[in-house]
């Protein structure tokens, strides 16, 4: 066949594949690499069910050719959880009943993660516009927005704790130094 060889990284792993010139990245992911988490809802970039990231940027994989992925880093829903540990967004989507049929869910999760990566503390309006490229026909979006709000809050708490931990030893050092200074002064 007249395919082309393409070299990419998918969810962190090096992946090489052969594809025809007329195949979209979505076709390649689903039909050649068996990564069927990205869905085809329209193939015209209107529904967002095929959302992936290309070098960290939110992209409709139906609008990118497979050959255009050459040399790029692709992120799909299959790479979102770390082993058994779900991403906070995945957890909150389940807890908030933010999915009914679930066909749009992978796309929403990729889009929501992409939003929170850029803006960890979005307003409701920012969430609504951040997710406006993804269609959901079941939920009316209410529970999706709430799940993203809740996940964002949890992620902020976690990162605050993490930075507090990092910062803690430094603070101690400063405190110790201060106390030394005051002792000196007293002396």
């Amino acid at each position, binding site marked *: 066949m007249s395919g082309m060889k393409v070299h990419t990284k998918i969810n962190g792993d090096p992946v090489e594949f052969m594809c*025809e010139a*007329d195949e979209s990245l979505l076709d390649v992911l*689903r*039909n050649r690499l068996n*990564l*069927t*988490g*990205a*869905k*085809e*809802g*329209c*193939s*015209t970039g*209107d*529904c967002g*069910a095929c959302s992936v990231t290309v070098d960290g940027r939110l992209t409709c994989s139906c609008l990118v050719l497979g050959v255009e992925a050459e040399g790029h880093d692709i992120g*799909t*829903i*299959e790479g*979102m*959880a770390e082993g058994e540990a*779900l991403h906070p967004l*995945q957890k909150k*989507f*389940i*807890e*908030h*009943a933010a*999915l*009914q*049929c*679930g*066909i*749009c*869910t*992978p796309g929403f*999760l990729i889009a929501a993660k992409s939003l929170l990566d850029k803006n960890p503390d979005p307003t*409701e*309006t920012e*969430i*609504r*516009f951040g*997710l*406006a*490229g*993804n*269609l*959901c*026909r*079941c*939920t*009316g*979006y*209410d*529970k*999706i*927005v*709430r799940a993203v709000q809740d996940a964002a809050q949890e992620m902020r708490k976690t990162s605050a704790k993490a930075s507090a931990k990092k910062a803690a030893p430094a603070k101690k050092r400063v405190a110790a130094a201060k106390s030394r200074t005051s002792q000196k002064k007293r002396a």
Partner: protein
Amino acid sequence: MPLDNPTNVKRKFDVVGSRPNRPDGIDKVTGRAKFGADASAPGQLVGRILRSPHAHARIKKIDTSKAEKLAGVKAVVTRADFPDHTDGDNALYDTMCNVMAREKAFYEGHAVAAVAATSASIARQALKLIKVDYEVLPHVTDVDEAMKPNAPLLHDDMFTDGVDPKPKKPSNIARRFEFGHGDVEEGFKQADIIVERSFKTEATHQGYIEPHAALASMSPDGSGELWCCTQGHYMVRDVCSRILGIDISRLRVTQSEIGGGFGGKTTVFIEPVALALSRKANRPVKVVMSREEVFKASGPTASTSIDIKIGVTKDGLITAADGTFRYQGGPFQGCSPAEFGGMSAFAQFHLENVRAVAYDVVANRPKTISYRAPGAPMANFAVESVIEELAHKLGMAPIDFRIKNAAREGTKSSYGPVYGPIGLGATLEAAKNHPHFKAPLGAHQGRGMAAGFWFNFGGQSCVSLNIPIDGSVTVSVGSPDIGGSRAAMCMMVAEELGIPYEQVRAIIADTSALGYNDVTDGSRTTFATGMACIMAARDAMKKLCQRAAATWGIPEEAVTWENGHAKPAGANAGNFAPLSLKEIAQASPGTGGPIAGHHEYSADGAGVSFATHICDVEVDKETGATKIVRYTVIQDAGKAVHPAYVEGQFQGGAVQGIGWALNEAYIYGKDGRLQNAGFLDYRIPVCSDLPMIDTQILEIPNPGHPYGVRGVGETSIVPPLAAIANAVAAATGVRFTELPMSPPVVLKGMDDAKAAGKSKAA
């Protein structure tokens, strides 16, 4: 069994009413869940369908010879591959004609041939090589035009049913229905105020995000397997086998996860074609619709034309209600939901004199299929718009006018039956007391409301429940889980058996594993299949008690089941330590073998459902764009098994209604071709269009269910059309009688009203 005495309805629950995580949640957030297009088979071919470019045409000849010769093409099918096995079943014959056109193509997108090839590009090339010789015929797509005496006829042999005497001249009116009671003419004589208005609504699509997909594999021995996304795989099995002329038991259908349906996946489109291709090619064939095909060739809902006349006395009592409902349902009879439209239109009122006449009309559009509460939203839009206008004429608050005339327990409904306990009054009162109702409005804002009704359905369900030796429980159901029903099934089984929710797993079994299950429609699954789960659990419980009785050597009747344990009762109470489900299951190999519970039946007693919606809109006077600023759904659920998913049904239905009211419409050109077959031009609501959708669940128990459950899925799409139209009227002073109320329509309406006001002043 449905309980005769409502006091028997259980009202104290341990599991039901809580909000556990759904069992299929992790699969769905990790991309692991397999939907229709996610399956593949070794050696599979790509199936593609050739569709008519004409709205109406006679198919004189189909030449497939060139396509067949193309390298990589393994099968081509046309009408010649679908000999008529339908045996006088008209509905089945029409379904067959719809999946593959016979004498005529009835709409743009109608399937005329299909190919199976080794790749998508070869399949595409092959379609171009098929020569179809069409004789283009005059077409009609508008419902009122289709009813005119000189309209282009779709069928020479369609003589309106339900009219006496039966007409001698054929027409596009398939059937006339009439519902009601009393004497409307007499009722209008008693009225002080009468409002009479005409309405039109355009066709809308269910808009499920997952296109139809099927993977078919037929063997030379005539047996077959089919994987597809559907709301009812038993229906798919029966319809496909009958169309293809094979024994029903030889076709095994497995349903994939389903990416939305809303009624649109309650019939077959590509499934028989995939099977026919596979039979001819002797290889598995996968057919997946494109989004354009979904819009043009699946089953949207009807477009309508409706006249409403309602009369009231000065003190606000309705004396008569009369309506004519014309529903266009595509090219075949019995497909439009005209009957449900006519039946449901006035169902929320207590009326002495009421009449609804409904017409099922054919036209050159895709064959319609159910869309969430089929037929009711359009009728409700017309009726509740007139109700609002009457209230204003009376100088009465619309909410009080509705409360005064509301149907209640004992009301003879407009479609016949007398209501048992119903929740309409409660939803109206709750609306009146809701903070939303009293909240101040901003500039250019208006508030509207509407109340709506849906019948709900029971139907056939068959459930098997198995308890392996570790005491975990698997419940196999045949109702596709379209929005979280597996969780509800597990909850009801856990509730009955008195065990934790996590101990129960629900799976959707394929068609070879269980008896027939009706499609997931009519808001039936949590009600009917859920009740079968409860009964199967009770059946298993009885067997668990038998095993305990045998172990203890006491009579069966002397054992009761409490909190997940068999306990000796009566004279034996306290004589033996209770046995847990796990202990009985562990011992089962030695006490009589596996323990299972079953239930199969056809459920009656689905309680009717009512909802009241309140909506605030803001209309941009410059552009005519309407923004929903606040929305509240109040609905009776009987008993909410998993309240989060009940809220989800309320919210999802409301938002589909918002799309229908404001933007969504099938737009046809003069050539009879659909001009907006894509999500860019057929605009469903997106996240940034909407506010949060507030919900209030009321629980007026349905006496027909052991827990009081009513179906909740459909009612929520009924009131939004009218609620929004009433809110837009309040915001602009203009009443819109046609949907959708898209920005150009609203802008023109406001401009026309302004011009009319000026000319009046002059």
